[in-house]
């Protein structure tokens, strides 16, 4: 049987043709002199193969996190420094199982590898990251990339874990079988990184083999013919032609739409091939995948030795408990409870310290600057607004620490599996759980995390409801309202009422998100019930370095937002709440006379049915940009209204409590008002950044506008109902 790899198959000029194409693809064929560094390196691999850890090890802190144009798939680019001091860009492509993409994430990786992306050139060297303990599964993608005739280096990662698991690998033999350099690494400890860099630096051509795996002979013959035809008719380069030929032969029928791209003679040929292979009894859909895996199996037999162990692997023993039908749920709920405990208790002290720091800064500014508009602007406009927001940094750090730990240890995939049952009930997917959990921090990473969901309808439904989860930007609003209006009594002697209120708000968001997802999946986004499949990585110790890098990146982007959007909004609001100036008159009248006051008065009739007055109206309007602006707005307005030179020392919650209704003389706000404000903020889409992400993600304004619309209506209706019921129960007085 002629092998794909042997020259016999490629005789008749095709071999030389391939070589000429390879040198074009590689751009710089190896020369006798000192090689130049490659222009662009791409890092690819299955999800959970330790790719990001390796990326961090290769680049250190020289990395940029951004987005690919048009989608919110994260683009991570870094710089690799070689021994000779030269540097090269390296891209950390999204994890993928194959070059036939199933999700937007995988599509990006595939497009770049195939050279089909307009935003990124084809890489000069591809580094395939392979989990040494899971060679069989990981080599599938490697064979597909080797088929592309690109210069490839295989990084055999986590060899230490493989050895611990009783797996011995013959690296030289593996390199011989694959026909490409193989470098063993332990990315988390930086082992093998120098060797990997060296291999990247010197590898400039594709492996010697055109094609390592074998097909049953008749299938191979037909494939080869089709490759030749695609090349002759469409001038498709050989490696691309092989990829397309396999897809054509695998397709269910020869009449489906991608065929429109091909000439009639090609389509006729494909139809003949289908008939022939079906007649010969080959299952076209599986024969290519099966052949690859069959070849991989023989490679593994030659290169991997497993020492027989009597005990089942540690991961199996952990999984028996963690995914148990009862204990699994208990552990999951316990972890979530711990997450909230950490976010609300442990973060309290650092939050207070940050707040004090800003206070000291305000006092210092007051001492060194003469009174006047500029000082007002800095203290009441800038510092007050930014401080209200930056004090949430500890919570954000804790949340990402927790999420990072769950992800890195391998638990996250199990959590998705456990939640699948519940998610299925509302027509969603187990994988939707991770975006929803991330949305407790912020809807933006939440919306971005939906990219792992392959079904577009499930993905859209998840994105539409993700902003209903209470994000950290709502925390300041809840915290202010609870401090102002909820008495610190205990319910049943154990649970404190403020804590219970906070939890209720989170639950309200969660229940509404699930309810709306169910409604969307029943109406707008009807589709086949989702199927759920997820690879469960082996449990391992987390890499502190990776988690610290992740936390650093998130904290920085949060601070950037605070320094730009929030600072700007605070200054604008200060201006709007201070001008036009009304000489004389009480400070409260002056506020009413200002632009912000007038805007608040303007929308007052609209929000009166919710029990809100015009000052809350100002907060609602200004916080359309971002929810936490509500708190800074209230802070700014009450500071201006007080007309004092500085913060009078009276806290904002107390000011809210003591505010009088100008008509009745009674308190302007009650417990009910506080609850209504919280309920409104649970449900309303008050976040421009999320709208922007949704627009980019869905490639249009339709869904983000729909989302703003449905959330506003929902918030209005529910708040109105709560207000009416509360009034009827006599809570309004």
């Amino acid at each position, binding site marked *: 049987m002629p092998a794909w790899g042997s020259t016999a198959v490629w005789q008749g000029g095709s071999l030389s043709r391939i070589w000429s194409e390879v040198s074009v693809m590689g751009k710089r064929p190896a020369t006798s002199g000192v090689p130049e560094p490659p222009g662009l390196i791409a890092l690819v691999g299955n999800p959970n193969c330790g790719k990001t850890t390796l990326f961090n090890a290769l680049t250190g802190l020289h990395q940029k996190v951004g987005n690919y144009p048009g989608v919110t798939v994260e683009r991570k680019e870094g710089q690799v420094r070689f021994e000779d001091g030269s540097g090269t860009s390296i891209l950390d492509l999204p994890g993928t199982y194959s070059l036939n993409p199933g999700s937007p994430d995988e599509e990006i990786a595939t497009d770049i590898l195939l050279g089909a992306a307009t935003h990124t050139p084809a890489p000069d060297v591809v580094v395939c990251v392979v989990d040494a303990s899971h060679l069989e*599964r990981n080599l599938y993608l490697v064979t597909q990339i080797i088929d592309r005739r690109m210069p490839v280096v295989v990084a055999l990662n986590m060899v230490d874990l493989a050895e611990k698991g009783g797996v011995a690998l013959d690296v030289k033999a593996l390199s011989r079988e694959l026909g490409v350099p193989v470098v063993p690494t332990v990315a988390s400890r930086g082992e093998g990184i120098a060797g990997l860099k060296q291999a990247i630096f010197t590898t400039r051509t594709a492996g010697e083999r055109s094609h390592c795996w074998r097909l049953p002979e008749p299938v191979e013959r037909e494939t080869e013919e089709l490759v030749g035809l695609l090349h002759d008719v469409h001038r498709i380069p050989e490696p691309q032609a092989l990829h397309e030929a396999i897809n054509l032969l695998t397709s269910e029928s020869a009449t489906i739409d991608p065929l429109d791209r091909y000439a009639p003679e090609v389509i006729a040929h494909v139809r003949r091939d289908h008939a022939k292979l079906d007649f010969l009894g080959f299952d076209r859909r599986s024969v290519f995948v099966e052949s690859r895996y069959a070849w991989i199996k023989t490679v593994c037999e030659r290169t991997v030795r497993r020492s027989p162990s009597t005990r089942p692997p540690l991961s199996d023993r952990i999984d*028996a408990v963690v995914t148990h039908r009862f204990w699994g749920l208990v552990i999951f709920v316990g972890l979530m409870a711990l997450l909230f405990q950490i976010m609300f208790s442990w973060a309290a002290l650092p939050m207070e310290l940050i707040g004090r720091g800003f206070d000291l800064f305000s006092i210092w500014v007051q001492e060194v600057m003469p009174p006047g508009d500029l000082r007002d602007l800095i203290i009441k406009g800038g510092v007050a607004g930014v401080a209200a927001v930056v004090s949430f940094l500890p919570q954000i750090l804790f949340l990402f620490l927790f999420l990072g730990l769950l992800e890195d240890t391998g638990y996250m995939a199990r959590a998705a599996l456990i939640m699948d*049952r519940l998610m*299925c009930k509302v027509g969603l997917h187990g994988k939707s759980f991770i975006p929803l959990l991330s949305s407790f921090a912020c809807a933006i990473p939440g919306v971005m995390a939906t990219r792992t969901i392959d079904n577009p309808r499930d993905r859209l439904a998840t994105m539409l409801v993700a902003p209903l989860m209470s994000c950290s930007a709502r925390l300041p609003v809840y915290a202010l309202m609870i401090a102002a209006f909820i008495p610190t009594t205990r319910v049943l002697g154990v649970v404190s009422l403020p804590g219970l209120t906070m939890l209720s708000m989170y639950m309200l968001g969660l229940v509404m998100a699930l309810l709306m997802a169910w409604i969307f999946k029943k109406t707008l986004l009807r589709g*086949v019930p989702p*199927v759920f499949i997820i690879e469960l*990585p082996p449990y391992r110790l987390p890499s502190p370095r990776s988690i610290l890098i992740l936390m650093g990146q998130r904290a920085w982007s949060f601070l950037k937002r605070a320094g730009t959007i929030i600072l700007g909004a605070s200054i604008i609001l200060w201006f709007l709440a201070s001008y036009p100036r009304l000489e004389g008159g009480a400070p409260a009248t002056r506020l009413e006379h200002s632009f912000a006051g007038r805007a608040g008065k303007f929308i007052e009739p609209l929000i009166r049915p919710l029990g809100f007055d015009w000052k809350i109206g100002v907060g609602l309007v200004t916080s359309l940009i971002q929810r936490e602006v509500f708190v800074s707005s209230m802070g700014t307005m009450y500071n201006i209204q007080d007309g004092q030179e500085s913060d009078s020392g009276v806290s904002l919650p107390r000011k809210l409590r003591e505010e009088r209704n100008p008509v009745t003389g009674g308190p302007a706000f009650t417990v009910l008002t506080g609850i209504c404000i919280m309920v409104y903020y649970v449900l309303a889409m008050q976040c421009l950044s999320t709208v922007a992400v949704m627009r980019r993600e869905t490639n249009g304004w339709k869904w983000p506008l729909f989302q703003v619309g449905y959330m506003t209506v929902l918030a209005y209706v529910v708040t109105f109902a709560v207000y009416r019921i509360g009034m009827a129960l006599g809570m309004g007085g």
Partner: protein
Amino acid sequence: MTRNASMTLSDVPVGTRVRIRHLSSRPEVSRRLRELGFCENVVVRCITRGYGNIICEIHDARVGLNSRLAGGILVSHLE
């Protein structure tokens, strides 16, 4: 084919090794399954069964799937 060809992956007892015989899901789902290694003639082992899901070992990797998906994978006992 074999005497047990009507058994699905969701019926496999914990710890048992079986051979995949046929994928009966939608074509795009079957394609995905094959690429993840759930191909005809491949041997899988059921590791644990949870609440509405199953974890199995395939090509020395651990994969979790929900019962609906596992119900579409026909398997038979090893000869």
